[in-house]
């Protein structure tokens, strides 16, 4: 501790304790963002039949200019879903202890494994416009898989603790 200034030491200590996670309640904001995005998307599709791919300037052959309403809509909805998924995936548990940290990292590792397996598989076996769908899949799949895996492990942990309680 003597080798680094005390104020740095305090900062490092605080960083280690916070673990860069969102507060517990932000998961509900995330869920709300994802739920709100569904009717918005449905309304947009009802007004502009033909879907994203025809309107989105990044699709091949599209003549829509950059940052035109369809493009902005695409950016907006993608951000809503992504921010929502991030808030759900990386919000603290009520009691964020060392076992939770371990389970979190474990789930994250499985999400990376699965993501790269699918990425490799699709890269080898698809071509052309399908590759764009891989990109879309890659945006949300690792986060979604992480959320499901982590929640499932937590559910199992709670269940085994409960059954143990009735035994005692």
């Amino acid at each position, binding site marked *: 501790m003597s080798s680094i200034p005390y104020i740095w030491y305090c900062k490092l200590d605080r960083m280690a304790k916070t673990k860069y996670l969102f507060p517990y309640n932000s998961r509900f904001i995330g869920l709300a963002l994802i739920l709100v995005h569904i009717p918005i998307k449905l309304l947009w599709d009802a007004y502009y039949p033909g879907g994203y791919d025809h309107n989105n300037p990044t699709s091949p052959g599209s003549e829509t200019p950059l940052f035109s309403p369809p493009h902005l809509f695409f950016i907006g909805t993608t951000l809503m879903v992504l921010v929502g998924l991030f808030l759900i995936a990386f919000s603290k548990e009520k*009691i964020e*202890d*060392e076992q939770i940290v371990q389970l979190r990292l474990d789930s994250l590792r499985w999400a990376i494994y699965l993501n790269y397996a699918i990425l490799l598989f699709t890269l080898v076996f698809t071509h052309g416009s399908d590759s764009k769908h891989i990109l879309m899949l890659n945006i949300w799949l690792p986060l979604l898989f992480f959320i499901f895996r982590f929640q499932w492990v937590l559910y199992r942990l709670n269940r085994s*603790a409960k059954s143990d309680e009735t035994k005692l």
Partner: protein
Amino acid sequence: MKNNIRVERAIINITQAELAEKVGVSRQTINTIESNKYIPSTVLTLKIARVFGKPVEEIFSLEETD
């Protein structure tokens, strides 16, 4: 690593939840430690030993496979 937290808890008559609160973890974590499913960190073992007022070695011990 095995432990006798369950016995030590019975001696000073506290529940898993009470021990969990004293050392700042969830009750599930104490439960999985007691059933040898989770190996606690050094910090947590020291905190648990402090609650029971005993050295760590009297509560936690290595197994053949460790």
